[in-house]
């Protein structure tokens, strides 16, 4: 059993797609206290107004009163963005720095999030991994993920989607059959512990540069972009050509929405 077990006993685990003012405020505080305010103000907050985020939260309630602004403290959060085709794009579990080695908590949040994706019949759960990052690739492969067909490019690197069915990941990580109480107390055998440790700590390390606003060095991107919905309408090189461009006098003047077709340069989002 872990020394975090008594602490974890007081932490509430829950999953939501709608964020109350209390939780919104708690998310802002969580991001600020852990040194990544920009994640909230520049990304999460704008996205929260939509219905695409699934948040698995680990929170501690204020002793009294248990409602209102300031009543929640976020200990950890796992995020999935449900994109086109029911894909669940994942952000690694973000834990408060006081829980930096609280693997039981991270695993419990992961379990809740993946179970929710499974129950919502998400087609996949996926991470965006820097191409050629062998450590992350290996860790994800061992967790049931496989290289998929989506690419993202920043100014500095290309990222490849690693995806799997949520239930497959649960099974590979050994979380499927475990009770939440055992996960939180970390009453696992050595092999299970190794597997979860590698998964969580590698992902946590991979996202650090992004959270530190050093995207140049990011081994992992948060799954907070709907890749397919973000594609240009005419397809991307070397992909589909898009709708035919009307000839002179056949349609409206100017380029049609699909008229930009394949181009020579790299696309920021490639399928």
């Amino acid at each position, binding site marked *: 059993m872990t020394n975090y077990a008594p602490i974890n*006993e*007081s932490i*509430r685990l829950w999953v939501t797609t709608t964020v109350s003012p209390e939780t919104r405020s708690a998310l802002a505080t969580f991001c600020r206290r852990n040194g990544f305010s920009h994640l909230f103000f520049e990304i999460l907050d704008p996205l929260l107004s939509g219905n695409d985020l699934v948040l698995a939260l680990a929170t501690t309630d204020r*002793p*009294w*009163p248990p409602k209102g602004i300031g009543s929640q403290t976020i200990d950890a959060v796992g995020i999935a963005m449900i994109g086109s085709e029911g894909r669940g794009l994942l952000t690694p579990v973000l834990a408060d720095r006081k829980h930096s080695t609280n693997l039981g908590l991270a695993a419990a949040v992961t379990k809740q999030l993946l179970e929710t994706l499974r129950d919502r019949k998400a087609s996949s759960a996926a991470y965006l991994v820097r191409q050629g990052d062998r450590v992350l690739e290996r860790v994800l492969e061992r967790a049931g993920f496989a290289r998929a067909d989506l690419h993202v490019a920043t100014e500095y690197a290309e990222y490849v989607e690693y995806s799997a069915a949520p239930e497959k990941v649960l099974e590979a990580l050994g979380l499927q059959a475990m009770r939440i*109480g*055992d996960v939180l107390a970390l009453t696992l055998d050595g092999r299970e512990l190794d597997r979860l440790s590698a998964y969580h700590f590698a992902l946590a390390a991979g996202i650090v540069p992004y959270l530190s606003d050093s995207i140049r060095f990011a081994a992992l991107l948060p799954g907070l972009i709907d890749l397919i919905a973000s594609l240009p309408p005419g397809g991307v090189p070397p992909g589909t050509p898009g709708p035919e461009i009307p000839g002179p006098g056949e349609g409206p003047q100017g380029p049609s929405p699909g008229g930009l077709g394949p181009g020579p340069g790299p696309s920021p989002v490639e399928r």
Partner: protein
Amino acid sequence: MVPAIDIFIRTYFRDFRWLELSLLSIIKFVEGFRRIIIVMPPSSLERLRGSEIPASAQAVVLTCQEYSDDYIGQQVTKLSADLFTDAPLIAHIDSDCIFRVPCSLPALLTKNGRPIIRILRRSRRPAGDGWRRCIADFHSEPLPFDPLVSLPIIYPSSLYRELRTECCDRHGVTLDQWVLSRRIDAMSEFGLMAGQAWFKRRDDFYWVSADDEVGWPCFQYWSRSPKATEMQAELSRVFGRRS
């Protein structure tokens, strides 16, 4: 002869350490009950390790509905306690209630086979307090006293059913719906029950003043207190358990 009494505890994951201490105190000090009914939502049951419930506690663990707001949810559960047991009398305590001296529940909570309802005529809680106001909101008139006294509190099984019917007749919604629509500072499940007893079945109960009560055998700690861990450690020593 007093009808069978079951002790009813609605708990959740955060109170498991308190629950264990409460059960140990019942084992040590309480007699005159049939069994302990422990009810919690499924998400909490999944976090129960088992060691919190001593084998000798005569306890049954059951699950209730999951509520997004469990503070109100636990009150809804308590108001349907009769659906979790067939005992004619149900004694409510919370997980953070610790018995400190020996007691017999029939002697403590009944008289001549009738349940005792303890009341406060000199309450520190004003009549406009949300916990008292909800009684008037529900029953259309206030109680002339404060029914919120220290636990355990006992009610006959039939009173729960009657309160549910009353809610449908009076408000046109189920009791669950009525309770869940309340603000957390304006809802008292035991207030509604006492109101039902006072307004509808007054003579079926003994109404006893608790204003000058001393030596009540059950002490209610506050599980949400920042000092909860300290208090638990002290009680664990008393009951010889892990802290």
